[in-house]
């Protein structure tokens, strides 16, 4: 092939592998790709350079590309697309892929690979990408022949977005990208056997509705699956919750699936969830789990989890059912589809919940609510972190479109507790994997998808430094992302656990040598702001909101504030710590110590 190198010929429908890839992406509706070039993907970048339908966003590290694609995907409901090179490009992407796997975010990640004849030779920038990413992707492909490429790309999108969404990797050797082959349009693709069950079993739905209608102390416990199912699922959920008059709680991943301002909403549940949500979970007699997975952050100690309830579980992934908690009525199917059938069944069966029992249940819930578990006292000059989030919420809640991303730690929990989400797809956080450094690149992705919206990364001073290089991406594309740092000079959650479990010995959790965030912002062409006193906070927030450039707001908050309420490791829902004064009364068991 040295001399007689074939050229792509559009008349005969043949093109290079790179052109096939671009065409396939374009036919899949892709308009934005997050990536970073390198030797093995040069032909792809060359092909991309010669077209206009797909815009490439150059990040500053491949890990940032994946999180940006996650932010893009989560805020649009579409598949996020990543393009990175072989070897280190692929390995840098692994954290983001694992993050997307844990949180069920649809991604297609194209990784370059050394040419096929060098695979297995320890070539320069070679790694076993499909081997490394096998456990952290929903599926992956190594394309060895250009004839397979179009089919693989279309199938990858189908796998990424259908069923329980997740990341898919396409490993593309450089020689395949340069070889000449034929294109295949997406409508000609059919997968042999991958067909997730979308419609719920009718008899199970009937049984579930009968169980719900007879409940005396019911609760809806809903998660990220509602959001993944699409905006319609949130509408249907709200309708069903309203029709039934039952209380509803959401997981961290589910925030926005049900309006936070609704009186039937009990707040988030779980380790840092509200007292009323967790107590209602513990005491309920019928639990309707919709698109959530009984994660250990939700259940607390399994042996004491909601001991007296019948459980209904709606999930598109059969492997989520009966994984941690045995349920009574499993329904495998897409949330929107199943909820629609449930509402029909509820109406058809003329379900009449026991109003007297329900009234008593709400009375009980109101008593728990009266504990006011999220209360804090803002007095004096020092800014309480909760107050900072609350003021941010007050200042932005009436704006049209606000997208919030977070990093991981105390600030993330405070954001979840104090920022109210009325709509799905406006809250992006790393739930399952808990990836510090997620929020800034995710904000890049959300801002790229919604150029005119307000995008805020609520961050901690430790997390933000994990992907701070993406400030350069923000500068390049003039993205007006706002970074709202709750700066307590500690890895706050680590410090809190050290206090709780390790005698307050703060091993390596103090953040030494922090940058001057205002100067840091300026060096990236952004605006740096700072608030030291409670009285300065509102003014700083207003200043941030009216700045049309990127902003880093350094909010100096109370250094030793801990995040409450909290279900300590190894404890049950009804064994919450409501504040520091509770810690002494409820020492953590040795079993709890080993948990994370």
């Amino acid at each position, binding site marked *: 092939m040295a001399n007689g190198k074939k050229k792509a010929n559009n008349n005969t429908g043949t093109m290079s592998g790179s052109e096939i890839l671009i065409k396939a992406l374009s036919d899949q509706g892709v308009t934005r790709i997050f990536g970073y070039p390198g030797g093995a993907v040069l032909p792809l970048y060359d092909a991309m350079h010669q077209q206009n339908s797909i815009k490439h966003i150059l990040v500053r590290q491949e890990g940032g590309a994946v999180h940006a694609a996650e932010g893009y995907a989560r805020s649009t409901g579409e598949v996020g697309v990543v393009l990175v090179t072989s070897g280190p490009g692929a390995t840098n992407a692994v954290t983001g892929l694992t993050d997307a796997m844990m949180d069920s975010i649809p991604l297609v990640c194209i990784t370059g690979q050394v040419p096929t004849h060098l695979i297995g030779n320890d070539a320069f920038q070679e790694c076993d990408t499909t081997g490394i990413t*096998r*456990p952290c992707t*929903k599926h992956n492909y190594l394309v060895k022949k250009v004839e397979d490429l179009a089919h693989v790309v279309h199938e990858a999108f189908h796998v990424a977005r259908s069923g329980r969404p997740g990341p898919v990797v396409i490993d593309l050797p450089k020689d395949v990208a340069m070889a000449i082959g034929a294109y295949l349009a997406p409508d000609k693709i059919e997968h042999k*056997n991958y067909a997730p069950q979308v419609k719920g079993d009718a008899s199970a739905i009937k049984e579930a509705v009968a169980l719900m209608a007879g409940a005396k102390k019911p609760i809806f416990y809903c998660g990220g699956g509602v959001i993944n199912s699409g905006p319609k699922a949130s509408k249907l959920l709200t309708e069903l919750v309203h029709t039934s008059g039952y209380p509803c709680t959401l997981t961290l991943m589910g925030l926005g699936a049900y309006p936070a301002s609704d009186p039937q909403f009990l707040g988030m549940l779980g380790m840092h969830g509200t007292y009323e949500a967790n107590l209602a979970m513990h005491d309920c007699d019928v639990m309707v789990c919709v698109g959530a997975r009984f994660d250990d952050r939700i259940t607390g100690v399994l042996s004491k989890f909601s001991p007296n309830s019948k459980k209904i579980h709606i999930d598109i992934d059969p*492997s989520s059912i009966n994984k941690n908690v045995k349920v009574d009525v499993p329904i495998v199917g897409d949330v929107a589809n199943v909820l629609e059938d449930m509402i029909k069944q509820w109406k058809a069966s003329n379900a009449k919940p026991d109003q007297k029992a329900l009234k008593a249940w709400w009375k009980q819930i109101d008593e728990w609510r009266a504990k006011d578990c999220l209360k804090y006292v803002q007095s004096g000059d020092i800014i309480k972190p909760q107050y900072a989030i609350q003021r941010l919420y007050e200042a932005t809640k009436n704006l049209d479109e606000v997208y919030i991303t977070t990093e991981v730690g105390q600030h993330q929990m405070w954001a979840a507790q104090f920022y109210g989400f009325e709509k799905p797809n406006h809250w992006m956080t790393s739930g399952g994997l808990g990836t510090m450094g997620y929020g800034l690149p995710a904000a890049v992705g959300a801002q790229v998808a919604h150029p005119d919206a307000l995008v805020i990364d609520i961050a901690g001073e430790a997390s933000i430094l994990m992907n701070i290089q993406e400030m350069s991406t923000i500068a390049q594309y003039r993205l007006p992302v706002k970074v709202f740092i709750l700066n307590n000079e500690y890895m706050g959650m680590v410090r809190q656990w050290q206090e709780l479990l390790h005698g307050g010995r703060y091993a390596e959790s103090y953040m030494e040598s922090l940058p001057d965030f205002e100067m840091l912002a300026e060096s990236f062409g952004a605006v740096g702001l700072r608030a030291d006193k409670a009285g300065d906070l509102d003014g700083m927030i207003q200043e941030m909101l009216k700045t049309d450039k990127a902003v880093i707001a350094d909010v100096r908050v109370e250094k030793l504030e801990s995040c409450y309420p909290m279900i300590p490791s190894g404890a049950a829902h009804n064994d919450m710590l409501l504040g520091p004064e509770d810690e002494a009364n409820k020492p953590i068991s040795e079993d709890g110590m080993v948990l994370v």
Partner: protein
Amino acid sequence: MTPIEETENTHTIAVLVDNEPGVLARVIGLFSGRGYNIDSLTVAEVRARRHQSRITIVTTGTPMIIEQIKAQLGRLVPVHSVSDLTLEGPHVERELALVKVAGTGEKRVESLRIADIFRARVLDSTNESFVFEIVGDTGKLNAFVDLMRPLGLVDVSRTGVVAIARGAEAL
């Protein structure tokens, strides 16, 4: 909450997969990654025209774990079907072993006699060794190997279990 049943049982699971690169790694990676047991695993292409292989896995776990294993296998993209032969009705299981026994004199004769009782065949013979081929269920093979131990057992190679449901139905 219903108490988790703690009794562990052994199940034989048949999995029909696309015979594509990495599919066995996916299955094995799932077991090691999630801490499930593999007592035995066999794989071979069974439907050449459709490029499908059949994997037979013998695994041990509580009912909840076995259910998880099947659900996790079922969601792998190249997996066509997952059948729990142990639960789904009567099935037959067979395993093949090659057993090498070295020795002379009375022990050599005794090994041949036992092989005869077990319907094992002699595949190879030298003046001081035999290689027996024996087919049967896992228990029979274990018994044969145990009997050969004092008679000069030097090497064993086993295929692992293959299994198929009784009756006229296909997987």
